[in-house]
């Protein structure tokens, strides 16, 4: 056959790349987002089919086995996962992408002999970034799923250990890249074992990258790891000289970095500060100790406050996700609206454990899109709000960010719930929030604490409304 398959495949890869670009573009606008995801998946399907036509493929059984296995794991996981567990699911998928890039790099290294620097450098990078992405995502998963303590894990000499490990990895990398298959005398090990050592080190670095990061900083880390998985794929693209991997990998890398930046900015911190400071676990102060009395409120009294309000703003946080309270919140919102009370939902950009976490949960509960108000949008009108209901949010409504220069979160933009006439705070106990930062909000004159599980508390309010 004279037909040029090679050319056809490469032309097809261009179409696939275009579909990815269009898909990402459409994903960034609410009207087109779903079509964008579909376009991008068509691009993926096209890329896979074209790859199957490649003449280098001699047998299909292992490919089929892998695709069947992967689909059997991936599809049910995506279908069955609860919306409240979305951050950990995304972390797991992300980790899968990372290790896939690592394995691609490794497989090429395993086969190759006399690989040049042009191939060895990307192999090193795909293994390194892929490995960090994999273990980092797994640790993020275990933290988010609360399999291990979500608090930052800090030990003495952590920074020094990190620096030493990075230095060793770079040195090994240089050796491998320069002399890929030859025998080097570094530590008396052959290049192959140096390569395996790099894989292990990459894994350890991923763990060390994520363990010092606390729950509230997770949105930054999740989007950074997302960016890494793209970069790892782009590196794998250089390994196998494939355009479509480079284009889509760097698209993901770039978009991930933008998202990471948005998240970091919303916390008034730099990415470096999030990664290396071990937020809240440092010896730096936890802010002024606030003295005063908190004023508890019963569900019955909270009902009276809400019932006489004209405008109510709900401010959800991670606590709403934990209590899975989004549906009852929506129910309460509907009841308030039925009583001619204006209801809005104020969403802080880093509320929850991943970018946009609260939006997803409230969308699941069918809260209308235009009722979800962004922080900059709602803050100027906060002093006209009668009741702000804080549901399991803490740091994102902490006025210390505005008032107390000694507070670790000083300077972070917050939702100014304390400007509302009354603030009702739903909280499990008086335990201070993540990282033990004092929250003067609880002691303000206009604050009322409604203690208990968020879902049960809201449920109680709903019952009060229905009883009348």
């Amino acid at each position, binding site marked *: 056959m004279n037909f040029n398959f090679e050319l056809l495949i490469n032309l097809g890869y261009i179409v696939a790349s275009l579909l990815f*670009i269009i898909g*990402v*573009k459409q*994903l*960034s606008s*609410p*009207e087109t987002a*779903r079509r964008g*995801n579909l376009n*991008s*998946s068509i691009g*993926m399907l096209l*890329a896979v089919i074209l790859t*199957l036509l490649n003449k*280098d*493929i001699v047998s299909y059984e*292992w*490919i089929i086995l*892998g*695709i069947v296995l*992967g*689909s059997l794991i*991936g*599809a049910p996981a*995506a279908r069955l*996962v609860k919306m409240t567990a*979305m951050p950990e*699911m*995304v972390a797991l*998928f*992300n980790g899968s*992408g990372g290790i*896939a890039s690592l394995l*691609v790099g490794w497989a*090429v290294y*395993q086969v190759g002999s006399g690989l040049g620097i042009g191939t060895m450098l990307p192999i090193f990078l795909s293994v390194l970034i892929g490995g960090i992405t994999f273990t980092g995502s797994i640790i993020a998963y275990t933290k988010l799923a609360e399999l291990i303590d979500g608090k930052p894990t800090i030990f003495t000499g952590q920074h020094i250990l990190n620096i030493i490990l990075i230095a060793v990895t770079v040195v090994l990398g240089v050796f491998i890249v320069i002399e890929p298959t030859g025998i080097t005398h570094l530590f008396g090990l052959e290049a192959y074992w140096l390569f395996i050592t790099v894989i292990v080190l990459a894994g350890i670095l991923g763990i060390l990258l994520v363990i010092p990061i606390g729950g509230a900083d997770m949105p930054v880390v999740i*989007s950074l790891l*997302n960016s890494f*998985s*793209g970069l790892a794929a782009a590196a794998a693209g*250089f*390994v*196998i000289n*494939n*355009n*479509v991997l*480079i*284009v889509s*990998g760097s*698209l*993901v*890398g*770039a*978009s991930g970095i*933008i998202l990471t930046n948005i998240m970091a900015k919303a916390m008034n911190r730099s990415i470096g500060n999030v990664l290396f400071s071990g937020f809240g676990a440092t010896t730096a102060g936890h802010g002024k100790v606030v003295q005063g009395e908190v004023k508890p409120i019963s569900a019955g009294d909270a009902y009276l406050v809400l019932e006489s309000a004209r405008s109510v703003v709900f401010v959800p946080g991670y606590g709403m996700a934990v209590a899975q309270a989004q549906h009852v919140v929506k129910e309460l919102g509907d009841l308030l609206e039925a009583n001619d009370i204006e209801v809005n939902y104020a969403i802080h950009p880093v509320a929850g454990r991943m970018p946009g*976490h609260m*939006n*997803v949960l409230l*969308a699941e509960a*069918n809260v209308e899109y235009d009722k979800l108000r962004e922080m900059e949008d709602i803050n100027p009108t906060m002093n006209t709000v009668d009741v702000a209901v804080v549901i399991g949010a803490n740091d994102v409504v902490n006025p210390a960010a505005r008032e107390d220069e000694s507070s670790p979160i000083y300077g972070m933009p917050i939702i100014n719930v304390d400007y509302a006439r009354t603030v009702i705070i739903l909280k499990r106990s008086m335990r201070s929030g993540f990282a033990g930062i004092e929250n003067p909000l609880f002691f303000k004159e206009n604050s009322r604490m409604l203690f208990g599980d968020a879902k049960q508390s809201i449920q109680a309010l709903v019952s009060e409304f229905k009883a009348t």
Partner: protein
Amino acid sequence: METIYLLFILMLAIVTGFELISKVPATLHTPLMSGANAISGISLVGAILSAGSADTWVTIVLGTAAVTFATINVVGGYLVTDRMLAMFKKKEAKK
């Protein structure tokens, strides 16, 4: 020369990526992230090439595992993103 040409593509794609999504409404942060995450499963292409040309048990294991993980990323990522976006869609239709 091939490397230079690939670096050109890398540069253009990164610039495109930055330009494409400079402004994203907060509502779409999660779907965008998980949709992008699905795209990063493009390593599947490399994984298929590895698994299809593997001839030793080590490369077979590496290749098959790579295909499996990349497929989890791709299939799971696209489905979960679509599921989230469907929830947003439903409300718009109701309005």
